[in-house]
Every structure is written in C-alpha cells, then in structure tokens.
C-alpha cells in the first residue's frame, strides 16, 4: 500500500483486526499490553494532526545514532491508543526527552529502571481531557495513559530498549508503562509549573523527568506547614535513593492547601525542603552509600563534603575513607540534591486525602535535568 507521498511502506498484511493485534505481539512491537493495529489510515490521521512532515525528526538519540521521525512516532502513537489530536503533545514530549541535556541513553537503558514522567500544563489539559485529580498516577484516563505509553513504545520500537537487552533495568517499575499526568493548576496555591519554568500563562507545555518509583507521603494529622513538610523532607532523605539528583514532589490539593493557608510560596517551600532533606555523612558511610569511585568525581566530592568541618578535600581521599567514620562525619550534612531548584513542585490528585508523592531522580549520581517544551498548536 502506498502512502499519500507515494512511498511503499513496510508492514505486515493481515485478514482481520484480531490477527493484527496478535501480529503486533509476534513482531515484538508491544509493551506486553495489546496495541491498536497501526493501519495506514490511522497513521495518516495521526500524522495529519501534528505540524510536522512525516520525515521530520522529532527525537534524535546521539549515543546510538537513532532518529525518530514524525512518521515512526505516529505509528507508535496509534499503537499506544492515542487520538490524533494528542499527537502535538507526543511530539513535544519526544522533543523534551530528546533534548541533548536530558541524555536519554542513560535513563533509557540503566539498571536504575527510570520511568519517563510527563507533566502537562496549560489549556491543552482541558482541550484534550488530561486528568489531574483523583487517582492521578493510576488508570482510567486516555490522554494520560496513551501519551505516556507512546514514549515507552518509541523507546522499545525505535531505540530498541528491549528489557534485559538494551534496557538493563534491574527491576524497573510500573511507571515505565506510562507516567503522564496534568498539573491541577486550579488547585495549586502557586503559579502553574510551566510559568515557574519560564513559560507564559496560557502556553501549554510538557515537563519531563527521569523518575524512580514514587513514594507516598501520608499525612492526615497536621495542617501546620513545617510539621507537614518535615514528613516530606524525611521521605526525601531516605537513604535508599539519597543522591545529588533532582526531586519531584506532587502535593495533593489538601496538603497544598495547608501551605497556601499559611502563605508559603513555591520558593520558600523548595528552600525549606532542601534545607531539611539531608542525612549525615556518617549515615551514608554506614550504609555503603559512599563509593570510593565517587572520590574521583569533583561534583560528588563537593556534594559529600560541602558541609563537613574539614572542608571539601582538594585531592581524592583514600578509598578506605569511604567506610572510615569520624566524629566530623556525624555532623556533616549531605543534602538531597545540590540546591532548592533541584526540587520541582506541582499539585495534583483527588480533592480528598492527605496523600502526596515524592519521586527521586533516576541514578545514584546527578542524573538528568527537568526539561520543559511548549506543545505546538
């Protein structure tokens, strides 16, 4: 069958829809869930809903020289179940994870098992029906589910991030199927996340993050900001994922309301969380979180020793130092991240319930930055 451009397209010819679904499995094209058979007509409709020509490259992954065109993105978006009008959001999300500073090859392949989180802001939320309320990270909402799933299918099909082959996630987590949600801007006491990240009010954006699995932060017992935030800081300082990397905190509307009631700004909240999310260097050493290899990395050395009485070592310490605990180590604070800007705050979830979430960055190192891109109209 020829395309609108007269090009013969590679594919598999089948008699009926059920065979087509099975063929997607047989070809190794799915994430384990059934995929919508990507027929020519559906792919053409998807492509037509975006501003791109089919050969435009939406994502280039330099470590393995992979260029994902709008056409291939459209095939995967159809398979994921996207409606055509979602395609501009898919393209923006691919551009975001393809930003060179995102260094996609790491989170796409590492044992850390990162999910690609997509946070949606702006009027596109209402226009396309993105969900920002009850069961925020759970099932039930087509735009959230299928756009997040498209990114994973692109990684599987176009970047060959097959589990156990190129995707070496030790365990991974269910967010790797799909992790896309909208901010509940209307329930937020602050400017929308997109505005905090430099975009105009009224612009629609996607913000991406390479995320480890989320941690619930449960509090029904206090409306006082410092008590409430102490719970968040404690969760963020968990040694299992303590790193110099970034954090995403998604406040439930109820928790956000407690902060708003006392006039806490976004910046004050970020600063407070950074200041209080720390463990002692002794704690890190005691639990094997200080690796001798860190000592040859100036940024990690700075992270470990910036609050140490002896100062940051000018030369790499002896490897044995990784396990030798001194009195000064017990007093030296090692914070999560390198500063308040490493903590991204947004708001979402059901109107009822004191359940928020903290997502640590992928990797035991610095990991990759938050990237925000505008959704093209």
């Amino acid at each position, binding site marked *: *069958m020829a395309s609108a451009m007269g090009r013969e*397209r*590679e*594919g*598999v*010819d*089948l*008699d*009926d*829809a059920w065979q*087509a679904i099975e*063929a*997607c499995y047989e*070809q190794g*094209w799915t994430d384990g869930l059934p995929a919508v*058979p*990507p*027929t*020519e007509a559906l*792919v053409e409709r998807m492509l037509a809903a975006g501003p791109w020509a089919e050969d435009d*490259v939406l994502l280039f992954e*330099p*470590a393995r*020289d*992979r*260029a*994902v*065109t709008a056409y*291939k993105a459209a*095939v*995967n978006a159809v*398979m994921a179940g996207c409606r055509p009008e979602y395609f501009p959001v898919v393209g923006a999300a691919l551009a975001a994870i393809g930003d060179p500073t995102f*260094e*996609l*090859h*790491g*989170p796409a392949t*590492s*044992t850390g098992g990162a999910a690609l989180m997509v946070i949606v802001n702006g009027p596109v939320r209402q226009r396309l029906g993105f969900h920002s309320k009850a069961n925020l990270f759970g099932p039930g909402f087509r735009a959230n589910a299928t756009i997040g799933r498209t990114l994973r*299918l692109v990684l599987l*099909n*176009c970047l*060959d991030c097959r589990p156990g082959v190129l995707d070496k996630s030790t365990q991974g987590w269910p967010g790797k199927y799909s992790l896309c949600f909208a901010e509940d801007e209307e329930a937020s006491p602050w400017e929308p996340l997109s505005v905090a990240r430099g975009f105009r009010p009224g612009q629609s954006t996607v913000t991406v993050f390479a995320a480890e699995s989320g941690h619930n932060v449960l509090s029904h017992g206090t409306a006082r900001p410092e008590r409430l935030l102490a719970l968040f800081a404690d969760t963020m300082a968990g040694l299992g994922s303590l790193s110099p990397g970034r954090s995403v905190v998604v406040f439930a509307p109820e928790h956000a309301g407690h902060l708003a009631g006392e006039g806490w700004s976004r910046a004050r909240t970020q600063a407070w969380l950074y200041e209080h999310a720390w463990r002692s260097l002794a704690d890190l050493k005691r639990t094997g979180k200080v*690796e001798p*290899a860190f000592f040859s990395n100036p940024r990690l050395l700075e992270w470990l020793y910036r609050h140490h009485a002896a100062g940051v070592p000018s030369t790499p310490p002896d490897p044995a130092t990784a396990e030798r605990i001194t009195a000064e180590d017990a007093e030296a604070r090692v914070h999560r991240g390198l500063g308040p800007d490493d903590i991204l705050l947004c708001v979402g979830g059901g109107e009822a319930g004191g359940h928020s979430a903290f997502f640590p960055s992928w990797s035991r190192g610095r990991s*990759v930055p938050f990237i925000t891109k505008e959704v093209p109209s």
Partner: protein
Amino acid sequence: MTRILDPTLRTVRVAGVVPLAPRPPRLAGASIGLLANGKSNAMTLLDRVAQILGERHAIEEVVRVAKTNASVPVTEEEAEALLKRCGAVVTAIGD
C-alpha cells in the same frame, strides 16, 4: 486485507547515521583502542581484554580513552584520536 505498519527503525535509513566499519582482516601490527564507557570498572575490564588480545595477536600498542559519562556519545576529539591511531577499538561498560 489490512496492512499494519512497522513501528521500528529496522527498515529505515536516516541521513547522517553512520554504518559500522568493516571488521579488520587481522590484528597483528594494529594499535588497539580501549574505550571505557564511563563507568568506574570499565577500564579494568578492558585492560583484561587487551591482555588477552595481546596474548593471541601481535598487537602494536594500546590506546586508552575513558568517557566521563556513560549517557553521552564519545566526543569528536576522543573519536578523532581513536580514528587516527587505532586499527580497531573495543568498548565496554563495567559498572
């Protein structure tokens, strides 16, 4: 009859993507590059590979390059250095 379209890149050739170089016919007399892919134990692994290669082939010399970040490609300068000096390059990740 319905055709479903291939979502993979296996059949796609994109301008700018460089194919793999042909395998060298022999290693005797060649300089071998060791490209450590940015993890802390990669060069340890590669050194052992070089030792085995040295036992089996009369290789000329070994050129070591260590990336600082496993998530990004080798730099132009690093690639250029390997290209100029080496007949073959072995790369590895050792976490």
